[in-house]
């Protein structure tokens, strides 16, 4: 994606986020424990500043887009590559691992997760992957479960 689009989207998202935050603070009920200080004061100050930052990023990019300077246009058209599918797969793998960790336990899920994720990260020697997964799990098990008494 080109930098100019990333900046415009970033600016808009920041402004929307701050508006949501501001709205959220308006749903809070004032507490007498605050002794005169509104619980909304500090969060609203932070959200207002985020809105200002978002607006600066947005307006600044629009102004730059209108300029005819070649250097500025080259910077704005700089492309940032995004391969979000691969990241989404790793996120999904982690979520499945955490759910399985809770349901099945450390010793059974960890070698499977290590095996699958090493395969996904590009390690194709399955014997090596299998040995490392099992050995690595045992070492981690000894440290966290046996030594530190962490109960997964």
């Amino acid at each position, binding site marked *: 994606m080109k*930098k100019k689009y*990333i*900046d415009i989207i*970033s600016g808009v998202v*920041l402004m929307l986020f701050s508006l949501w*935050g501001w709205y*959220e603070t308006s749903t*809070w009920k004032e*507490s007498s*424990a*605050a*002794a*005169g*200080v509104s*619980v909304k*004061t*500090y*969060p609203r100050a*932070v959200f207002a*500043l*985020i809105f200002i*930052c978002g607006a*600066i*990023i947005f307006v*600044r990019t629009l102004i730059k887009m209108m300029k005819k300077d*070649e*250097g500025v246009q*080259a*910077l704005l058209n700089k492309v*940032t590559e*995004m*391969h*979000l599918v*691969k*990241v989404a*797969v*790793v*996120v999904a793998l*982690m*979520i499945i*691992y*955490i759910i399985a*960790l*809770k349901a099945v336990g450390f010793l059974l899920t*960890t070698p499977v*997760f*290590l095996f699958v*994720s*090493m395969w*996904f*990260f*590009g*390690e194709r020697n399955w014997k090596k992957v299998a040995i*490392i997964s099992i050995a*690595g799990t045992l070492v*981690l098990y000894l440290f*966290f479960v046996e030594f*530190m008494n*962490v*109960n997964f």
Partner: protein
Amino acid sequence: MELLTNLTAGFAHLASPEVWIFMILGVLVGIVFGAIPGLTATTALAMFTPLTFALSKYTAFGFLLGVYCGGYYAGSIPAILINTPGAPGNAATCVEGYPMREKGQAGKALSLSVTSSMMGGIFSALVLMLFAPLIGEMGYLFGAPEYFAIAMLGMTCLAGVSGKDLPKGIASGLLGLCMAMIGQDAITGMTRFTFGSVNMMAGISLIPGLIGLFALTEVFAKAEQIGKKKEEIITDFTFYKPRLADYIHCKWILFKSCLIGTVIGAIPGTGPTISAWIAYNEAKRSSKHPEEYGHGAAEGIIACESSNNAVTGGAMIPLTTLGIPGDSVTAILLGALMIHGMTPGVTFVTNYPDMLYFFFIVLIISNLAMWAFGLLGSKFFPYILAVPSSILFPFVIVLCICGVYASSANYYNLFLIVIIGAVGFLLVKAGFSMAPMVLGFVLGSLIETNFQRTLIGSSMDPMAFIESPLSKGIWIAAVVLTSWMLVKNRKSNASDAKAAKKELKK
């Protein structure tokens, strides 16, 4: 004369070989715990304090202070090698340490880190020895406005760590403040941004927050590279011998960082995170080569790590002289003192002078042991980088998950780190830096609580923030530092734009 007598008495307790063995063991335990992301010196001390019941108080404190020093330093190892701070205090080290490792100078970065940690630790131990009672009284001067001012001084680092894009850096810092806002309001107890979840009422703890923002963001960035290009593993297996020239070259930065660490450490409730960022910012501000910062500047590592470990001696000052623990680690040490039959507080110096001086000596010896182990390790730690990322990163994920679970025993935090990591990754892709976000996140609760306390204490008078001479001084320092950084940032951006134009014309 009294100093010499007490010092001799302190040294006398080192006559037992048991004290030495446990002290060195403590340093090793501290290094192991500190180097594992998610586990910190606090975890190690909490785990091992009950085991010291059976030991004599000198052996016990030799061990515990060894863990304390080793743990504070070792967080820099994963910070440099895998961009994951072992503890919050080492987060600033990532900014320079990781780029240095990417340049193939992991050995040098680790060597600089352990040597400057040792220097910071010994500096603060000497300060503790000479000025403990004097600095201890400084804690009394700090009220809510002063704490707010010092936290804002920490936030001035935003200008320094924002990179080229200041609005994005500031926005990132503000998003960090938002992260810290989640959960219960410290004054009224009202829950905010919890979406009805009971788990979110406690907010986001530091360990899951930092692991999500640094470690998983990096893991996701690596996942994005899968299959794109053949990985180039730049490793540096050569041992980097500590050179005096490295430290003489930036002696003032080193001195200032040690001083910042000791003074900040002596202020209860602050700790190594804030001191490391302030030292980093000050080093960048006063550097002759600020353009090198963010690309693996050795000075940056020296500043962060010396300041981080200088906190160890500094934090012992309010603990021993006032009985106030500065952070969670010293809170455990306070408990350990009580367990071993000593009452910390204003009478500690007069009641247990030999113990106080024993602490100084142990801190100095532990720092030297830490240096020896760290230097030896700096030869071997980089070998971890020879492990292909296809094997390393799955283990980093499991280690992060185990570490976070070990620190909180809560599955909710595990899901949280995935979400934080994914959001962090998207922000990095959009050009937002993670360092300001971490800064905002770490300082958020300190800022908010003291902002509210000041206003409540002054019946909503905003002048209360600058009423005392101390807070005035801190505010002036904050304004001067920010202005300086902004001017430098502007100059640097202008020269970058000129360079880009020239390149385009070519």
